[in-house]
């Protein structure tokens, strides 16, 4: 990098109140899960995209999200061992590493992110949204746990919109199959009033999350909308959407970000507050979790801020206006499931990225292509060319994996990022000249 690329100043990391609150929420949730065999609380394993958290909560079922357990295993340095166990059991090196990490964790005692044993599922709620692997994952888990599975097949938005037929199909499944199964497993009758209360709380939290994500339109951005957003979307993507905890968390987070805006601060990074935003980028694709901090620092060290990302939309496209609507509980859940990012067709994904580049005043975009995630990765080279062509802004392409450390080559990724940001610098200098 040139002399202009002086690393930005950073301060020591200090945890915000919202971070502490989130940590406590998660700890309480895992305490309940760990105690479930004693307390008799029941749990449902399910997926992030298209999850029916409000419905589960209305039946007093505790959600467990295997994807999140896998990424947590990676962040704790456990996933390599877990993947190795799964591969020794015959799982191919070619397939999703979330699945293998989960299988390996299960075979190693099912110790969750807080070091406590997770309870076996009372039911697997297979919300089959935007990812083919989900279906196979829960077929595999069913063989391990021998528990009931309820499938919720969510059609793909192949033509870029939700049709009445799709919505009807999803609602019919929720009404005739998901709810009766949850009634059987929980021993409770379906309580629509309670569901509506949860949906009301969801919409409140969603409003605040969107405010936070869209704060990145400001210059400088007060948040990092890729790495930092991972923490921001955590509660709403997982077990807390539809709870008062989530409402309180997002209210507090919004206030903190508003304060950062008022003070003209940049985002929090692994090294604390970042000053001197030099590059604004949009990021497509999930992060690498095994070297998450190192990966983030590659950006922040160069003064690069992610101002929008698609990964932060896998659990819902709230920034496009969707909100859970308590007045139509089943239909609104159907629309939520149908609208998650990976359920959108490629033309829509391209439109969205192009729009983000414009609305968030980004200098360019980066694609982190994940080896074992075909849902995201298949077609990303086409996305790269199309978005470049439409926006006139340069794209960068890096490759890594979700939770398999064998596919995170720090030197290669750093080289590519440095070259990319250097190119942005040169374009900027050329433009100024």
């Amino acid at each position, binding site marked *: 990098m040139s002399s202009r690329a002086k690393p930005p100043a950073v301060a020591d990391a200090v945890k915000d109140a919202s971070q502490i609150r989130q940590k406590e929420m998660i700890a309480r949730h895992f305490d309940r899960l760990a105690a479930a065999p004693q307390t008799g609380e029941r749990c449902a394993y399910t997926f992030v995209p298209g999850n029916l958290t409000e419905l589960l909560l209305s039946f007093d079922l505790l959600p467990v999200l295997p994807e999140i357990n896998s990424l947590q295993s990676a962040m704790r340095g456990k996933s390599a061992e877990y993947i190795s166990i799964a591969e020794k*059991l*015959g*799982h*191919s090196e*070619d*397939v*999703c590493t979330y*699945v293998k990490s989960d299988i390996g964790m299960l075979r190693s005692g099912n110790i969750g992110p807080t070091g406590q044993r997770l309870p076996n599922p009372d039911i697997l709620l*297979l919300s*089959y949204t935007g*990812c*083919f*692997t989900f*279906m*196979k*994952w829960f*077929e*595999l888990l069913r*063989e391990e746990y021998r528990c009931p*599975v309820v*499938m919720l*097949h969510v*059609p*793909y938005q*192949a*033509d870029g919109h939700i049709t009445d*037929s*799709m919505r*009807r*199909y999803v609602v*019919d*499944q929720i009404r*005739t*199959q998901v709810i009766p199964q949850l009634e059987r497993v929980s021993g409770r009758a379906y309580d629509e009033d309670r569901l509506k209360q949860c949906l009301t709380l969801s919409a409140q939290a969603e409003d605040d999350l969107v405010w936070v994500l869209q704060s990145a339109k400001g210059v400088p951005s007060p948040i990092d909308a890729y790495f930092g957003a991972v923490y921001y979307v955590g509660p709403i993507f997982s077990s807390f959407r539809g709870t008062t905890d989530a409402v309180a968390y997002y209210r507090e987070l919004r206030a903190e970000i508003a304060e950062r805006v008022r003070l003209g601060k940049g985002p929090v990074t692994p090294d604390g507050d970042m000053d001197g935003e030099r590059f604004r980028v949009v990021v497509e694709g999930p992060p690498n979790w095994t070297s998450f901090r190192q990966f983030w620092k590659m950006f922040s060290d160069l003064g690069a801020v992610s101002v929008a990302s698609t990964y932060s939309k896998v659990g819902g496209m709230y920034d496009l206006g969707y909100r859970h609507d308590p007045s139509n509980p089943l239909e609104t859940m159907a629309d939520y499931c149908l609208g998650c990012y990976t359920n959108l*067709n*490629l*033309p*829509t*994904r*391209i439109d969205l990225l192009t729009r983000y580049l414009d609305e968030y005043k980004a200098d360019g975009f980066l694609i982190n*292509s994940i*080896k*074992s995630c*075909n*849902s995201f*990765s*298949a*077609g*990303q*080279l*086409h996305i790269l060319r*199309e978005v470049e062509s439409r926006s006139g802004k340069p794209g960068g392409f890096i*490759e890594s994996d979700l939770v398999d450390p064998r596919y995170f080559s720090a030197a290669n990724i750093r080289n590519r990022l440095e070259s990319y940001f250097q190119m942005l610098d040169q374009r900027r200098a050329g433009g100024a000249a």
Partner: protein
Amino acid sequence: MTDAIALSDLVAEADRLYRDYALSSVMQWKARTGGLAVGYLPIYVPRELLHAMDVLPVGLMGARDDLEIIKGDAYYQSYICHIPRSTIELGLNGSLGCLDGMLFPAICDVIRNLSGMWSMLFPGVMVRYLDVPQNFDAAVGGAFYRRELQELAAELERRGATPLSPERLRASIAAFNENRRLVRGLYQLRSRQPWTVPTHELYLLLRASLVMPVDASTAMFAQYQALVMADDSRTPLDQARVALTGSFCEQPPIGLIRTLERAGCYIVDDDFVQVHRYIQHDIPIDGDPLASLVTAFLEDGVASPTRYIGDGVKGESLLRRVKESGAEGVLFCAPSFCDPALLDQPMLVRAVEAAGVTWTAFKYSENGGQFQVIREQAGTFADSIKLWSGV
């Protein structure tokens, strides 16, 4: 094909159609009939519906090892399977220019995402993602699938196809029933007398059939059956009987199939070109034919890895295939990076091991050209079956 055709000529003609990237037979059909031709990717589409609207369904299964992939590789990372890149290559080099539409069945994320790419790369072509249900309740998944088929029919009609009518659909179902019966008959004959129906020949017929009108395909299968039954020169060899599974989408090179046979394997069951056998029995032609088509998918579709197995037992179908075909072992033969096949495989392995069936596994890609390692592996596997089975 004439009545007097020799077996070698029939197989050679099937081979020619299999190798015809330019789809010249489809172009000839279009010139002759003025009808629409619609391509489809693996594994299953309701060909009866297209046929009933005078549309020629054209099965596409990627390329072989003789097509240099240049543009297609620019669209996919190294860790994506091969079939989408060869399909893109064929699209961009003009080979698929005679197709008026493309159907992308819901089998995996790669084919799903390819549908969106196709709509952008070929904007004049009808592109439809065929979202088959994973809910098999007639009132829920069945109702959804019926609406999908009605939308497909409406779109084809808008593009100039003959309107769908119950009478025409019944006739088409009858035509495909006859076709499927012949394919099933050849599979049964092969499992009884595998030396009579070598898999590399049967495979060529299955591939050729993808680009033929159903009546011509039916005639070809019938002729082939008659010719091989009359051929006394085909005599049994000391080969091991194996069932092959995992090759339902991207296809192995024909050289790989020959290699397995030369290595001492009689392939007595497989899942190649599965569209011909996806529906396992005749579809009723009385009553509402669209309902029959829907019911056939819901209740009679094969237990493919792309299909959610809800109440059933994983591997049950494979074990039934092994039993019915008299296979002595299983070859797990999947394309590299094929999510459905490779994610399914541990469950199937567990099932065959529990049943005491021996197995081996390897991967391929459609453009692979080196089979020595597989030959040795398959040969050892076949030898072990011959040496140890029944001991």
